[in-house]
């Protein structure tokens, strides 16, 4: 009897514990009742990689709102055929994969023939490419599913990239005669798309700047010029000297080793900036520059905050307490949505 009780108790306990699992790690409470989520399904390595790529695409879908426009001229019929072009631009910038087509039917064929992993079109994960191929008189469309469950695509009239549909709205509008399908990009197809054979995993290094140079980053969405401040987080040698020192940055960097800049929560939300995005730091007095990554979240007053490595590279001196020597100022340019662009 004791053995049965023990086994039953343990089983129920484990089920109860797992029923509350979710992906979120921060402490989460609020004024209201708590609830549970689903335990994650087991994933293969390929599915996990595809999911990671999906996350990057979901972030890129948001980062491009209002900035990407497919009305670039007659080659895509002044945006009438811009949905494939728009998705291709985002996929290329985020993963290096080029569908090299302006046709929803051809893109669909590429996805189902190895470039994609089919997922449920009625419950696609973030970053899934949702596509309704053109067939006959039924005009197709393609978009990317965001973290918020909305579908992002180009407005065929204005060409602007924006949240255009709920999932239900998409199915109502585009299922047509050919139906709607959803895919995550296949990680193995990504790997083969790099002629260098380089891994697809995000590259957090800075070294020589982004592959493709500054042109690959587009315009910086965040530009600040202010007094330089030094973030020493992640540098064990600073423990005990900097009153607000943290063992880790949000981006996982060591301040002494990696050039990074600090963003605020509001900048992350309003501009779509995220850890690992590219940044450019300029010493306003000397013009010295260094490439950097977005590496930590700081106070709302945090503009101009850079790592020890970034400060040293642009010739800014600082004390052990993280105070700068003199009154140096820097211009920080941040390029949201670029974290997956590798360094040279």
């Amino acid at each position, binding site marked *: 009897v004791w053995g049965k009780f023990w086994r039953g108790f343990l089983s129920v306990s484990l089920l109860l514990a797992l029923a509350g699992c979710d992906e979120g790690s921060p402490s989460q409470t609020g004024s209201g009742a708590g609830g549970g989520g689903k335990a994650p399904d087991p994933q293969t390595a390929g599915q996990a990689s595809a999911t990671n790529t999906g996350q990057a695409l979901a972030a890129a879908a948001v980062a491009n709102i209002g900035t990407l426009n497919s009305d670039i001229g007659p080659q895509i019929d002044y945006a009438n055929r811009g949905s494939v072009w728009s998705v291709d631009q985002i996929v290329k910038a985020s993963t290096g994969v080029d569908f090299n087509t302006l046709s929803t039917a051809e893109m669909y064929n590429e996805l189902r023939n190895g470039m994609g992993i089919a997922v449920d079109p009625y419950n696609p994960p973030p970053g899934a490419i949702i596509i309704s191929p053109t067939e006959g008189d039924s005009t197709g469309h393609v978009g990317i599913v965001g973290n918020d469950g909305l579908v992002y695509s180009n407005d065929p009239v204005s060409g602007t990239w924006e949240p255009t549909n709920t999932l239900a709205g998409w199915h109502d509008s585009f299922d047509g005669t050919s139906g709607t399908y959803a895919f995550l990009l296949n990680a193995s197809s990504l790997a083969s798309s790099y002629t260098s054979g380089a891994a697809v995993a995000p590259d957090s290094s800075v070294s020589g700047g982004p592959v493709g140079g500054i042109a690959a980053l587009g315009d910086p969405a965040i530009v600040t010029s202010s007094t330089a401040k030094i973030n020493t987080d992640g540098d064990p040698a600073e423990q005990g000297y900097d009153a*607000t020192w943290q063992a880790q940055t949000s981006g996982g960097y060591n301040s002494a080793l990696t050039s990074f800049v600090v963003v605020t929560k509001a900048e992350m939300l309003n501009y779509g900036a995220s850890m690992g995005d590219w940044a450019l730091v300029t010493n306003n007095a000397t013009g010295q520059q260094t490439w950097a990554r977005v590496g930590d979240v700081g106070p709302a007053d945090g503009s101009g905050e850079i790592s020890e490595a970034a400060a040293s590279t642009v010739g800014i001196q600082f004390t052990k307490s993280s105070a700068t020597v003199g009154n140096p100022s820097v211009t920080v340019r941040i390029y949201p949505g670029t974290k997956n662009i590798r360094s040279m």
Partner: protein
Amino acid sequence: MKRIALALLIVTILSQYCQAAKLADSPDGKWSIQTATQGSVAIFSSAGDPVIAIDRGTTGSERLRAKWSGDSKSVILLDQAPLGSGISGAWFDGARWHATVESDSDLNQAKALAKSQVVSGEVKAEDRELGDWLSRDTIQIRGSLRYLGGEKFSYSYDLQIVPGSYALNRGGFETGGLNASNFQAR
């Protein structure tokens, strides 16, 4: 008894890793704030569908707090990282939800107040907490600034949701809709 203790230990350990997805239900039960996928927090309908994202940047966050207004038409979310915080808000206009993010420039008023009390310098970290709803549309926020020299300044202010339709920014949030006032030292 050893087996029960072991089971309780396992449950306790798992609970540390498995946080509830739901942060807060609205008083009328029609809505809830839930963590969605990969660093996103959204308002969900009672049917379980996400209706609008109110946070997409929880990477590095250590604390999420949400508070609903009494009429269930407004909600404020605090996202606290080790060195800085962000506040977003949402309101329901009867037809749809709107979401916005509090401007970083609001902190300048807290810094000015600190300076008037001879606390100044480089702000190295700041944290905030959600206080009580003071009225249907205004909630009290309490915060503290930590300076390079080790000083700390504690303050509070009122944050009012001003319903309307504002321009969408690059991140997909409306720009406007939150008004900070009545900054006080505490």
